[in-house]
């Protein structure tokens, strides 16, 4: 195997400033080269000797070329994300951990021959060599739903244009619009294959907008978090009212909206910097740095509802009917209505059970109640 001529030329053009990258080090002093890898080192090489020496550590050379020439973008979220895709060291990371230290080049090259799988929310990303039989260092990326990890590619709808991801992300499996892109309701049954690094990042930008940028900020320790009070006070127009939402209601809101079952983002914002919410922020893979527009819109509704006074009402229910109200609310809150079987009258949220309760306990205004604190 010989070092590709253009690789060598590119490399030589870059060596004047020295190269230190992923274990490869090349220096030139007075026309003599020094070459170092973690396994070996050579000194006093002329150009021909350097070429010979590089043949024994070609993986380091092609790895250097892929990252420095093909990917580029030093310091960008795109580059760090692509490095994460193959367990490469993440020099941008604020704290070096076993995860950010990553794999050395030979181990990565072994793994890239089979493909390296990484998860990103409900996405599974495979990084692999373009040419598995004669890898020249160039990588491509395949992307699909984690649920399709074991599916045959021929059973999936295959795409190669990142913009096709927009349509995939629009509706859930029941055909309902997904206004929250990080809701755990991404449909499966599709695959993107052979994407370049830039295309992979663009595709994920449509599926999970801004998650890579915010992950990268978190990695570098500069995620800018806007807590509830800052976000609420900033609002104007019809959302001006949301800073009236009572403190405890913000807890309830976070519990309702920002749970792992509803959103893959991990809530990092709190009530304010010194006042944390009672509920856990979840274990989502992407940091959530401020209340999203859906939370703001819902907060407006709750701010208006919470401005109402509480009253005491009297209504007559059997114990089972009272329990049934709990079942009904739970079923809606957990999105379980579709699972309740038509004839399962043992389930309090069964449609016939609900219709019976309505027939028995409703008058023309709804639930028959008497306000007793007038």
């Amino acid at each position, binding site marked *: 195997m010989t070092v590709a001529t253009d690789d060598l030329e590119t490399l030589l053009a870059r060596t004047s400033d020295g190269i230190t990258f992923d274990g490869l080090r090349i220096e030139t002093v007075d026309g003599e080269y020094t070459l170092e890898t973690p396994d070996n080192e050579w000194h006093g090489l002329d150009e021909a000797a350097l070429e010979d020496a590089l043949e024994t550590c070609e993986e380091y050379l092609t790895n250097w070329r892929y990252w420095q020439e093909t990917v580029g973008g030093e310091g960008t979220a*795109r580059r760090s994300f692509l490095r994460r895709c193959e367990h490469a060291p993440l020099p941008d990371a604020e704290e070096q951990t076993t995860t950010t230290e990553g794999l050395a080049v030979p181990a990565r090259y072994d793994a890239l021959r089979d493909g390296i799988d990484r998860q990103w929310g409900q996405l599974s990303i495979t990084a692999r060599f373009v040419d598995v039989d004669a890898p020249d260092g160039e990588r491509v990326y395949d992307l699909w739903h984690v649920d399709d990890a074991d599916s045959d590619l021929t059973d999936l709808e295959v795409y190669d244009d990142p913009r096709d991801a927009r349509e995939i992300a629009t509706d859930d499996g029941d055909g309902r619009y997904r*206004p929250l892109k990080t809701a755990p309701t991404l449909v499966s049954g599709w695959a993107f294959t052979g994407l370049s690094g830039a295309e992979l990042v663009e595709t994920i*930008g449509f599926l999970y*907008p801004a998650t890579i*940028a915010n992950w990268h900020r978190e990695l570098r320790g500069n995620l800018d978090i806007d807590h509830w009070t800052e976000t609420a006070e900033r609002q104007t127009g019809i959302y001006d009212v949301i800073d009236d939402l009572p403190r405890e209601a913000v807890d309830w809101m976070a519990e309702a909206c920002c749970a792992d079952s509803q959103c893959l983002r991990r809530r990092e914002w709190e009530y304010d910097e010194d006042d944390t919410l009672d509920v856990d922020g979840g274990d989502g893979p992407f940091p959530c740095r401020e209340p999203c527009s*859906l939370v703001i819109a819902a907060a407006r509704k709750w701010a208006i509802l919470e401005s109402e006074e509480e009253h005491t009402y009297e209504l007559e229910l059997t114990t089972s009917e009272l329990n049934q109200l709990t079942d009904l609310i739970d079923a809606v809150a957990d999105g379980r209505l579709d699972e309740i079987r038509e004839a399962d009258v043992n389930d309090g949220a069964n449609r016939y059970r609900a219709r019976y309760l309505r027939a028995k306990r409703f008058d023309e205004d709804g639930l028959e109640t008497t306000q007793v604190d007038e």
Partner: protein
Amino acid sequence: MQALVIAAHGSHLNPDASDPTYAHADTIRETGAFDEVREAFWKEEPHFREVIRTLEADEVFVVPLFISEGYFTEQVIPRELRLKDWDPEKWDSDGTSASQATLEADDVGKTIHYCGPVGTHDAMTDVIVQRAETAMEDPDVGDGVGLAVVGHGTDRNENSAKAIEYHTERIGERDRFDEAKALFMDEEPEVDDVTDYFESDDIVVVPLFIADGYHTQEDIPEDMGLTEDYRLGWDVPAEVDGYRIWYTGAVGTEGLMADVVLERAADAGADIGDARKAVRDRTDTTVESSHEPSAGAGMGD
């Protein structure tokens, strides 16, 4: 490197609200004029708040896909983009003459050229005329035809009506259509009485809205008497009081809107090469207009 951000309203309820934004962004992507093109939304993702950080370019042109200068373009978008030195005075506008302001976004350290909305750009006049051409399937439309430009009106801010009147006046000066009138949904002259304001037998009605939704697909067709019930659709043209009304929905879906976006960015200093020509060459077919009803809450939810 230079990037373009198209800033639009979007919707939590109606998936179609962002279609024109994506369509115009794609048209511009294909010209290759910008290293990066990104859509950003108030109600969808990426949100205005987080769009700039997704870009690698240091110079960013932000073009609001909004009709008028007002609450969204003067307050919401600059605030959410963190343009901390923003002041509407920087546009030095009379309500329809905003061009751009150059600012820093303080979370990213990039130069942001914050442009006026597409709706008040002079090139928008051409888009309205093109919409009339596509509605009547006649590239020379004008003779014997009245043109109504329909807007929301003043309930939100006075500039909303100004943008409608501005383009109507410009179209009138071209002497292309027999008549050109500005009509409104919630003020006089009202679109409900469209036939009272025209003498021409053929009236082409162009709503100056960015996206199709409740107003353009439900209210306006019913108000004009094109249909009893928007869900049943309507004919183009539809007969009303002996007039033929040609109505096809929001002008914002017209392919030539991409050209207005490009012009806004170019006015702010973007190097767009011959992208405008490329867009003008292809926009007859870029975005299919449709008069099929599409239910939804549109922009207002």
